[in-house]
């Protein structure tokens, strides 16, 4: 259970670039659910995800994960419970280390790292069998640097690494957006399998309406740092990309009108 309570975050406070990225965001996510955060560019959807991950500390509000208050915990402490996959396929892996070394770091997430050999024979066998499940032929290349792999392969490995020790929460940040459609679909398929297998609580950010409709059991629409729609259950199932598209068009229209009306108001009253 992830609870977000009245989160606020302002970037560049007190400067001309001041941005209110999150404003009074409250959200409860049940364990085992798959929530899709949908929003346009700059809507604050990634900021919301980063607030949960701990990339920054929120200005006010509280974040609780399974009863634990993690509002002020630094990123690496939260990482003990949270798995993440980034939008950029290069962000989730260490390019100059081998596949096996990357996996060994992931396999120690949330555990005490010690002075014992990272790549013991038993560990290698474990890596071998789980990488084999990806069906990408990477299991024979465990001792190659990850930097030599393609983006899709790296993203698949990142996903595997994020879920290596079953995380209490999985954060997906538009993790297929930077891949070509075919690879993206493959990674998405893999994501579904992994999530279903381990019944992971998932929090996914996307701007693709198709993905939002196809995946998950809840859609949360974010606009200008606020939650504007929240569909779940039957409502969510009934949604079509077209409906979402119209909701967005609606937002866009408002955005077009808003500056214009404010101009008129200014001209008349100021």
């Amino acid at each position: 259970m992830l609870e977000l309570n009245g989160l606020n975050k302002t970037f560049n406070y007190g400067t001309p670039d001041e941005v209110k990225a999150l404003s009074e965001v409250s959200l409860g996510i049940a364990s085992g659910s798959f929530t899709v955060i949908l929003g346009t560019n700059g809507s604050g959807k990634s900021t919301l995800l980063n607030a949960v991950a701990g990339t920054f500390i929120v200005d006010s509000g509280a974040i609780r994960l399974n009863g634990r208050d993690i509002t002020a915990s630094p990123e690496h402490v939260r990482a003990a419970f949270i798995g993440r996959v980034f939008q950029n396929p290069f962000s989730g892996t260490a390019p100059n280390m081998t596949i096996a070394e990357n996996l060994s770091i992931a396999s120690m997430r949330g555990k005490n790292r010690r002075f014992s050999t990272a790549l013991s024979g038993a560990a290698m066998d474990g890596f071998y069998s789980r990488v084999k499940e990806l069906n990408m032929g990477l299991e024979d290349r465990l001792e190659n640097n990850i930097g030599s792999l393609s983006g899709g392969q790296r993203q698949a490995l990142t996903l595997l690494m994020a879920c290596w020790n079953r995380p209490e929460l999985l954060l997906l940040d538009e993790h297929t957006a930077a891949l070509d459609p075919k690879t993206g679909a493959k990674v998405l398929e893999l994501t579904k399998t992994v999530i279903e297998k381990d019944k992971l609580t998932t929090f996914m950010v996307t701007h693709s309406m198709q993905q939002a409709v196809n995946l998950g059991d809840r859609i949360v629409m974010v606009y200008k740092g606020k939650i504007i729609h929240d569909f779940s259950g039957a409502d969510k199932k009934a949604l079509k990309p077209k409906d979402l598209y119209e909701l967005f068009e609606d937002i866009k229209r408002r955005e077009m009108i808003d500056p214009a009306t404010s101009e008129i108001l200014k001209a008349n009253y100021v």
Partner: protein
Amino acid sequence: MYKRLKYSEWLIYYPAKLFPALALIFAASALLLFSSQKAAEKAGGTAGKFFRLAVVAYSDTPISEEGRRGIKDGLMETGMDEKRDYEMAEYSAHSDAAALNGIIDAVKNADYDLIFTISTPALQAALKKIQKTPVVFSSTGDPIGAGAGKSFSSHAENVTGICSMSDFSGMIKLVKEISPDVKKIGTVFCPAEINSVLYKDCLKKAAEGEGISLETVPANSAGEVADAANSLCEGRGVEIICQIADNLSAASFPAILKAAAAERIPVFGFIESDAKKGAALSYAKDYYRGGIDSAKLAFRILKGEKPAGIPFEYISKTTLVINKKAAETAGIKIPKAVADRADSFIE
């Protein structure tokens, strides 16, 4: 099950990767070995009346260059002729401690007849490694502290040399003669140079003995000397700058002159060439003279004396040079008694 590379495969893999590097190291070693062997043979062949000398300096500073110049001129004064009687190789470590060790190894290997060291680290590196070849040091303020012996007469068997201590009480006497009311003198010093700290302390002792206090400002690099000199000249009530001789201030002497000129403070130097550069006077037992003296010690050793029997010496002669124009500009009058003693004047 993951199949790892077998150890036997690594045994081929690693050496193959390392082969080019190993080959180059081997080639370089061989080159060094054979070339140094040749040098040793050559040394054996030319023994006799012809001497092979080496000068080892730690850094490239005016002081070090003065010392080298002194050694060359000193050898000439002994009547020996380069080419006919001796050849001299010069080495400088360019302030690199590791290179200094390499130089000492190279010098040891080449079997020179005598080795001159310039500066304290060069002497120390030689002390550690050279036990047979005579070593004559100069530009070393405190050979005992450097580990060359227990006293000036009881010291390492193959080592002797010239202790380059300036004449501090002489300088203070000059100061008193020229301006009897002086209360405060000053100098820039370098905490990193063992000689500099030593000289500063000696100058302080000599000055305090005459009721004069000494202001000092530390500078650690050439870039800091100008700031240190400005800080020394402004607002501290320093009446005369008696700049001690160390590598740093010697290299940046013009910066000290400039700062002093701005406040019309006269500068007295401990290096002969200071007066030429624009100091009011220089009273020098300087490194050039030290070089000449060490060449004379070397001559005695080459003629058959044992270094063990030659006590360390101070620099033999003190040179007073007066720069009339600089003195006038700084507003001091040189008394006739002092002027009469001067070895030379700069007009």
